[in-house]
């Protein structure tokens, strides 16, 4: 007889840049209601299903990896979420935005309607709970809105750009998203000429599948 390990794993959390903004905003949006797990930093090519010691050692190289400390950029964390799918799934869901990059001139508009491939037996489908789109720097857009999902009670702030003028991310929920590039010139720098560009990222996450895609968003000065 031996003792079972009854230790509870305790880990310290840090507030993200977004978390601090929401706390300062004091409008009720700083409320932790759900969690997600991720395997950021893991390289599954290290997985070895032919390990001579057997299946208990297939993930040996991964399990021994040292991990980085948490950082506070909310757009760079939880990139690769874990998802719950039926056992036997051989093809994992991936998102298709119809674009691999988005380039807009100032004041130009674009609509993005994400689709999920390989999800719940369908080759291509729209997720019932919609998608979460996050723009890395919300100052780049004068309009950013999601439609198609009832977000009543989710306390989504529609202030664009953010009143602080800081390079903070902003998220919207929907099945389709409309984006209009900013007309503000100061973001390009004081001596920027027409044609100068600024770049941030758009990250879309399927709210049901957890699939995620990030593409660059470039605004061109007119």
């Amino acid at each position: 007889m031996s003792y079972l390990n009854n230790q509870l794993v305790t880990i310290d959390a840090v507030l993200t840049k977004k978390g601090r903004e929401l706390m300062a905003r004091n409008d009720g949006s700083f409320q932790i209601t759900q969690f997600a797990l991720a395997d950021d930093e893991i390289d599954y090519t290290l997985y070895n299903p032919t390990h001579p010691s057997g299946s208990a050692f297939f993930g040996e190289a991964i399990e021994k990896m040292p991990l980085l400390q948490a950082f506070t950029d909310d757009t760079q964390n939880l990139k690769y979420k874990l998802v719950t799918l039926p056992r036997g799934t051989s093809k994992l869901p991936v998102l298709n935005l119809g674009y691999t990059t988005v380039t807009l001139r100032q004041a130009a508009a674009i609509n993005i309607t994400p689709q999920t491939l390989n999800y719940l037996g369908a080759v291509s489908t729209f997720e019932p709970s919609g998608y979460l789109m996050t723009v890395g720097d919300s100052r780049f857009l004068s309009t950013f809105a999601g439609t198609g999902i009832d977000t009543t009670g989710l306390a989504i702030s529609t202030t664009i750009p953010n009143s602080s003028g800081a390079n903070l991310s902003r998220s919207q929920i929907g099945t389709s998203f409309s984006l209009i590039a900013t007309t503000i010139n100061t973001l390009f720098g004081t001596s920027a000429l027409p044609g100068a560009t600024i770049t941030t990222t758009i990250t879309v996450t399927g709210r049901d599948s957890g699939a995620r895609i990030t593409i660059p968003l470039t605004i061109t000065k007119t």
Partner: protein
Amino acid sequence: MSFIAFNPEDSVISSDVSISPMWTGNVTTLTTFHSSSTQEASTPGKFYLDVYQTSSSDSSAEIQFSIAYGHVSGSGSAYFNPSIIDKTPTRDIYGQFRTLLYGDENTNITFGSSVNTSKDIIVLSINRARFKESFNPGSITLTLATGSNVLKLTDDSTVTSTATYIGTCRVYQLLSGSFDSVFSSNYTVSGSYGLMIPDEGLIILNPRALANPVGSLGGLNVTWNEDSSNTVASANPSFNYNNRKTFDLLKSGASFRLQNYETISSRYFFVRVKNADNNYTTNPTVIDSNGNLLYTSLIYNPQTFITTVGMYNNVGDLIAVAKLNKPLIKDFTKELLLRVKLDF
């Protein structure tokens, strides 16, 4: 599905006490005392003298505390305006702390027993960033010295069962002794050596006690500048003499031991994942360009390696993030329970 909702019972708030060294660099006993001649000669320098742990010109210099002498009649500093008598920086200081403590413009500050009211005070105001929430009672040893005469002071928290209050301020009396031993519980003929007000970051020394002759329950025979304002004005001092005198006593004593006290409120979240959940990943290194899993063994026996826990609001904004110190394996045979601590 990647988000899992917290149930009400998955979160609990707890408060923990943190006691740590007072001074810059996590130093409990400050042994070197520096001032800035620029600050001392400035207008604020007529009220208080900032004390640094290193040369004020050093890039690592931080204000540890400030010294301010106050007098009920304004002695010890020049008039603000020679035509308006009685209004001086030392009068401001006395009135400021009398109001803070008593909320009364007529009550003089008392050290120890009620008969020991004092016409003057010396305030050591600790930098807010240093004392955080309050002092840790019983941790102080303040050493003052002039020549070969040394006086060690500590608070009376170790010899009294309950704290006393002036108004709503928790107050301890300063006695002869050090943090681990009170030499005598008795007061001097001028009352206690001072007051420690832990929750406001203040130590108020009794100049009358320090002016007493050297000896048992004596002082340091300090002569304070109690010149009338006219005299001081005519002398045209370039600095506050009594602040400088106190600084010299501290510098000669070369030992100021103190700890701060802080209550840290933490919220614990219990992250529970059932065996059937979170066994697949969106990590692109596990699939090919068409979304097919790279390893057939992962189709019926999928494994994931958890590195990160994200805490979200309803909208999906990532509010807090926690990292594990090594990847934690998850599959259909394992359930997960993690405790995530978020400090405020």
